[in-house]
């Protein structure tokens, strides 16, 4: 924690509480992780790569979205990933959620991950909001009992009124985001991944979201990864910051130092 001498604000008290909630167990570990995206010269080369070893093909470039990235996050920590566009934040989070594989190195994740990656993606337009919650819960591997608890919780949080039983194609973008956020925070995650998702909805809903994320973070078992360009949002939630640039880790330390480092970049 920072050592400034000012009188403790309510935020600081909350921050101290979060600090105390960190345990020694490792929630996420990146061990020399490199993720390479291959950009083929054209579709022909991509096609040929299936048959004749991937290495021989002509590449326009091979981009290391994450380059020899190593860090450990303990259970209960709240960590912000700071960095400009293309720094590799989202790629790292994708590997945490398990939808992308590292090219080199290993990613270890202990616990159920709930990701707020592109909240509105993955809804089925022809199904209703309620069905989509159910469907997503199913796909994530929730049991029946968990689903019975999760669905009403999400419905209540999203607060969509009669729209909850209407097909998603009738929703506005804000409504979709509310449903997606409602799902992510209601599913009792052990690891919550927030990818600038809080910038959704109107002011009232945003406040509700912030309050809920704060509540989740006070739980000592929950690890939060927060991805953002803006250091002010990060400072509100996190106590640790990791600054990424071009896939490399440039800085890892307290959130105040990290955001100062990021601002100076």
């Amino acid at each position, binding site marked *: 924690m920072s050592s400034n001498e000012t009188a403790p604000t309510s935020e600081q008290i909350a921050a101290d509480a979060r600090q105390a909630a960190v345990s020694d167990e490792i929630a996420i570990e990146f061990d020399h992780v490199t993720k390479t995206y291959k950009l083929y010269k054209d579709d022909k080369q*991509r096609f040929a*790569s299936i048959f004749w070893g991937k290495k021989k093909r002509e590449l326009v470039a091979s981009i290391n979205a994450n380059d020899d990235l190593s860090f450990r996050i303990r259970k209960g920590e709240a960590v912000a990933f700071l960095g400009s566009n293309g720094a590799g934040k989202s790629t790292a989070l994708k590997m945490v959620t398990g*939808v*992308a*594989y590292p090219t080199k190195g290993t990613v270890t994740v202990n616990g159920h991950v709930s990701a707020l990656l592109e909240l509105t993606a*993955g809804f089925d337009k022809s199904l209703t909001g309620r069905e989509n919650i159910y*469907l997503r819960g199913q*796909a994530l*591997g929730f049991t029946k009992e968990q689903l019975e608890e999760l669905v009403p919780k999400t419905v209540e949080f999203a607060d969509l009124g009669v729209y909850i039983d209407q097909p998603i194609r009738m929703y506005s973008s804000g409504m979709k985001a509310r449903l997606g956020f409602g799902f992510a925070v209601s599913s009792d995650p052990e690891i919550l991944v927030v990818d600038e998702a809080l910038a959704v909805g109107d002011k009232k809903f945003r406040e509700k979201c912030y309050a809920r994320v704060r509540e989740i973070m006070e739980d000592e078992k929950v690890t939060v990864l927060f991805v953002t360009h803006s250091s002010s949002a990060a400072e509100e939630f996190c106590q640790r910051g990791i600054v990424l640039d071009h896939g490399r880790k440039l800085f890892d330390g307290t959130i105040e130092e990290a955001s100062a480092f990021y601002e100076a970049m």
Partner: protein
Amino acid sequence: MSTLLNIIRSQWERREQIFTLAMFDLRKQGRGTVLGPVWLFAKPVVYIAVFWFALEIGLRSGSGSSNGAPYLLWLMGGLVPWFYIQTMLGTGCSVLGRFKYLVNKIKFPIAGIPTIFALAEMVIHLGMVLLLLVVYFLFGQPLDAYLLQIPVAIVLMFVFFYMFSFTASLLSAVSKDFKNLITTLSTPLFWLSGIIFNVYDLGIQWLQVILMFNPITFIATLFRYAVYDKMWIWENPMAIIGFAVVFIAMMVAMVVVYKRTYEEVPDVI
């Protein structure tokens, strides 16, 4: 081998979800309609009626079997599995794109995605098989052991076209050429696989041998032996050998393609 076990195990662990997602997919197809499930069966039934009219009444090419089974049963024996196969060739070869959110938004075994689709289609197929059996018994055909070849055919068809759909959709995620290739081949396959003509009456020896390596012909043959010809498939050993060869080749292709592409697919889809 371990890759194959991996493909099976990853699905077995998620069997309940796969089943629920399949039922959702089925329900989705009936969305936006009042008649819902009726439409799932309307198209195949109309097809059968039209083909029956054109072939038996129009062209007068239909004839009953020596043991009194009507031509309609022969025709349905080919068309009923064909409808399932057609869907697996068509949508089935880009099924990963259809369930994109399961590939790159949610951690889900991609091997299970074709199963979701195949199960949903299988429900429709079982409905059609039921219809086939209703027609079969309405014509006063006997309940005998030959009919046991139908469940065998269904299982073989399910597994084979699962492997096909998984392989093809991995490939078409990487390159759209595959999808176009299969879509282009769908209609020729219908006319060349002996769905509406009798492969065994051709009298051209070499062509008959080639067709024995066509899995679509094999499945249709199994259905027809059960409801029309009243024969056992092992009375035609060449068909079994041909199908076994293609089946194993398909399995090897699936494992190789899966190994080569599964890490890349979420990035490119």
